[in-house]
């Protein structure tokens, strides 16, 4: 059954030869059916909404849970048929996985449209009503439009039959230069600038917060000092470049920092990770089985 598994380029129930009337009919039919389904969901009475959401959530989760629990067939080469029914299911699950992953990709793409709508509504509104800080909104809307325009223009050129030529900047046109300027010249640099601000914030936060107010804070500060010094190769080299450390290699800065990292930091992170992992397992379970509901005060 090829309900989800459309692996390979073979023709099956879900597709048809490129450009054929059959394919167009199938696409139109799919659109009509999904439209009807969509409006059907909107029209569903309020008391049915929870069960509907619950059923969909359960089915979506069931696929991944089965995929994870079902014995997976090993050493499978393309073009092989399953040996037995257990393998049959394993093959089917494996083949269906990319299609199921595509569902969420498609959904995300649609939702991005809603996000863009939110941005546009808030900022166009601000611009039109000349509300406070409307200048920022103007910059935002202009940047968005320019990026879309040149991004797609460049994309279409690059995906044309002669797109390969654009690998060489000597063949670039205005749209390629504009897109490069917006992407590499502006966006990337602003990204980097934003990230580098963290260095300043780390300095001011450490300066303000790192005080030895208690025994614990003192131990923490000492550990931090050792780790920071061990990252400074020149300091670590100077520290270790004497006969005492050379005969007691466990006292080198790298060795102490390594010990702290392996025996103090790693176990505590593991502890926290276990807690977080189990927390998200329980959360996922409650969502999957529809046990999670909004709290009523």
């Amino acid at each position, binding site marked *: 059954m090829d309900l989800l598994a459309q692996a390979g380029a073979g023709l099956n129930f879900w597709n048809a030869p490129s450009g054929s009337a059959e394919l167009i009919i199938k696409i139109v039919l799919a659109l009509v059916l999904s439209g009807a389904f969509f409006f059907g969901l909107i029209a569903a009475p309020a008391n049915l909404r929870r069960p509907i959401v619950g059923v969909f959530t359960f089915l979506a989760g069931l696929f991944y849970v089965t995929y994870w629990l079902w014995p997976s067939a*090993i050493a499978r080469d393309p073009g092989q048929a399953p*040996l037995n029914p257990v393998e049959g299911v394993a093959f089917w699950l494996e083949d269906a996985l990319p299609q199921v992953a595509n569902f969420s990709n498609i959904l995300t793409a649609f939702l991005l449209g809603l996000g863009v709508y939110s941005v546009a509504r808030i900022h166009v509104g601000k611009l039109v009503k000349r509300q406070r800080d409307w200048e920022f909104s103007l910059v935002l809307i202009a940047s968005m439009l320019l990026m879309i325009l040149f991004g797609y223009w460049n994309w279409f050129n690059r995906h044309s039959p002669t797109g390969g030529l654009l690998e060489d900047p000597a063949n670039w046109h205005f749209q390629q230069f504009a897109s490069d300027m917006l992407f590499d010249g502006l966006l990337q640099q602003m990204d980097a600038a934003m990230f580098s601000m963290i260095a300043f914030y780390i300095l*001011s936060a450490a300066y303000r917060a790192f005080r030895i107010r208690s025994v614990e804070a003192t131990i923490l500060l000492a550990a931090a000092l050792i780790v920071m010094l061990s990252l400074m190769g020149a300091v670590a080299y100077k520290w270790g470049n004497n006969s005492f450390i050379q005969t007691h290699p466990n006292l080198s800065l790298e060795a102490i920092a390594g010990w702290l990292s392996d025996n103090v930091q790693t176990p505590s992170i593991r502890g926290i990770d276990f807690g977080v992992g189990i927390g*998200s397992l329980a959360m996922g379970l409650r969502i999957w089985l529809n046990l999670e509901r909004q709290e009523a005060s």
Partner: protein
Amino acid sequence: MPFDLGSLPMAQIYEGAQYLDTGWFSRVFTLVLVAFVLLNIKRAKSGKDLYIRRIAGLNAIDEAVGRATEMGRPVLMVPGLSGMNAIVVQALNIFVYVTRLCARFANPILVCCADAAVYTVAQEMIRDTYQQEGAIERYDTDSVRFISDRQFAFAAGVSGLIQREQAAATFFMGAFYAESLIFAETANSTGAIQIASSTETTQTPFFIAACDYVLIGDEFYAASAYLTRQPILVGSLVGQDWSKILIAATALAGALNVTAIVGPFTGAQATFEKTAGVIAPVKAPRAVAPSDAFMQHLLQGQGGAMISKTLTKPQRPKDPDYHPVGGGS
């Protein structure tokens, strides 16, 4: 005794060991954890009173909202950077609680989203909360915003909002990455009271340095149980604690096991070893190593494809419907 896979009927039916040794232990272990959670949910539902310890960061929520109300400045919430997942749902659950307080006191709110799916869900949940509080007229459609799905564009957008709107209380809950400190320091500079939590362990220190209250690790997941005391959530939390005890016990058993075989008997010779998922006599004589411990055998060498190299390849028939990838139209 060596474990003879061939003598098992399953192995004969299914051509070798591949169905027996593909990580069953982790599956069973996880199912036990799932059972713990479900069992405790059942216990809590049947009216058993379960205890949760005090969590300072969650007690401070009321104080933070109260102060924002006094100052007449907005409360800003960010559910992290991730797409729609369990972490975000948990963050939004906490934000629903915060919004409920804000709706009662007619305090403005701002929810900033970095993912379009999260934005849509957040909008629904926040509007529902206002409706439940009978204060739908106070709900501002612009209070839940999609800013950008680019990490640093989002960081810049949210920092700008914190500065311009002079947020009096900020809640950063969910999966935060490098932007955590940008948010926290910006909000610190406006004097906001900050409650934060990141499921990313590496960002927690940044929040601790710059925020007033931080939920560490799974305290984040305990939040909704703590705030609402719903039996399902409290039960689930107790189940999580049972699971943690089981994991700690397994780790301890492993440590004792390894110590017992390597510690006092150093120099003893290994007879059997588990390589590539199969236990077999050692090829060359060698001393006992930690990898020979039973607990290690249980937890390691069960990975899927790694073992396939050493096992006989199953001879499968050809699939008549197969079309090679890339060879189609």
